[in-house]
């Protein structure tokens, strides 16, 4: 399975390009799933379908889906809060359970929920599709989501170290005293018995897998931009962020190029891709808005994608 993340500034044509790529790939007899992670979904509008959290069949080989981020975060929070409340039921008299309820407003939860949804999707659909095309939210949010695995892994590393020294101390106390328990709770002193350490390792594994996949050969980041100053500036920032995160930026699409401004478009392409010789560039001409079916692509994207 190969994945393509279509990223870029809002309004540059990410969704259009992602849809065109998905459609063209499906025409070459490949099984394709197009997923939108953009909270302001457009995928359904483009294909003229009402889409939801569940994948929907559009064509023999093409499936479409719009991830409901709010639903994904609520589901994630609910699962964890239910677990918390069942364990900490004694806290109810002190209203501590309310404290857990406010977790859903804590910063970063939505990004994490989208990442969890993405990881789940990639894991489940790995066998069912040859290509997964992902339409992402505008730049800022996308970079934050894609940066999460790296940030989280460094935090997990620190937490694991602290936990390790706690367990070491407990082990010493156990060896001298013959037992270690407080207020009736038997404390774990071995790494293999400690649930916290186990959970930390489990989360670490999950993120490692995701990071390896995102940085790997089967994943490509496509940056869609327009030949104008603002789009150039934002795309430059995006490309730098991708480089910092070691994410594979492989394809650049210069969209909405007008014939009379070809020179300007070339200048912007050169500036944007000056240190990225390995990146494939596609230039797409602006369509006549008068055309009713404006989403029929003239240029063939599959040559580059396949």
């Amino acid at each position, binding site marked *: 399975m190969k994945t393509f993340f279509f990223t870029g500034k809002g309004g540059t044509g990410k969704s259009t390009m992602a849809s065109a790529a998905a459609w063209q790939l499906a025409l070459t007899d490949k099984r394709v799933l197009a997923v939108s992670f953009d909270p302001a979904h457009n995928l359904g509008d483009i294909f003229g379908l009402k889409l939801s959290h569940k994948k929907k069949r559009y064509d023999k080989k093409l499936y479409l889906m719009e991830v409901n981020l709010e639903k994904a975060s609520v589901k994630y929070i609910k699962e964890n809060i239910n677990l918390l409340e069942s364990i900490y039921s004694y806290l109810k008299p002190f209203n501590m359970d309310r404290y857990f309820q406010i*977790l859903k407003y*804590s910063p970063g939860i939505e990004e994490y929920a989208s990442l969890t949804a993405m990881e789940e999707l990639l894991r489940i659909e790995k066998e069912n599709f040859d290509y997964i095309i992902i339409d992402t939210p505008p730049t800022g949010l996308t970079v934050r989501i894609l940066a*999460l695995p790296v940030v989280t892994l460094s935090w997990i590393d620190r937490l694991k170290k*602290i936990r390790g020294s706690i367990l070491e101390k407990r082990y010493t*106390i156990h060896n001298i*005293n013959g037992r270690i328990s407080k*207020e009736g*709770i038997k404390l774990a002193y071995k790494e293999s018995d400690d649930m916290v350490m186990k959970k930390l390792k489990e989360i670490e594994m999950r993120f490692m897998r995701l990071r390896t996949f995102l940085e790997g050969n089967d994943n490509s980041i496509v940056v869609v931009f327009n030949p104008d100053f603002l789009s150039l500036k934002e795309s430059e920032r995006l490309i730098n962020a991708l480089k910092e995160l070691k994410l594979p930026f492989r394809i650049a699409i210069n969209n909405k190029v007008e014939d009379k401004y070809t020179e300007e478009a070339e200048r912007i392409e050169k500036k944007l891709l000056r240190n990225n010789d390995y990146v494939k560039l596609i230039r797409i001409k602006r369509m006549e808005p008068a055309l009713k079916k404006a989403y029929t692509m003239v240029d063939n994207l599959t040559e580059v994608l396949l």
Partner: protein
Amino acid sequence: MLLKDFLMKIINGFKWFFSVLGESHRSRVTELTSYEERELENIFILLLMGSFAGIPSPPAFLAVELFPYLEHELRVLEARAKDSSDALAELAGLMDIG
């Protein structure tokens, strides 16, 4: 028979006396390590919950996933918060001052 019972009682009494003595010695030896261990537990949970207190902290979801297994650490945090005004006294007690 009576004498044997009596002797056993004395022996058991000695056993008990020495075991308590040993235990108290052992617990004195581990007092400092226990203190360190408790502080580390406190730091661990404080780090996880830092975002609620405004200190830089790991993403909130990490805390959410770990909380179910941190009952003991939450109690430690609560106890530390209660005694925070008297931290010096605790330290002094630990070092046998006063």
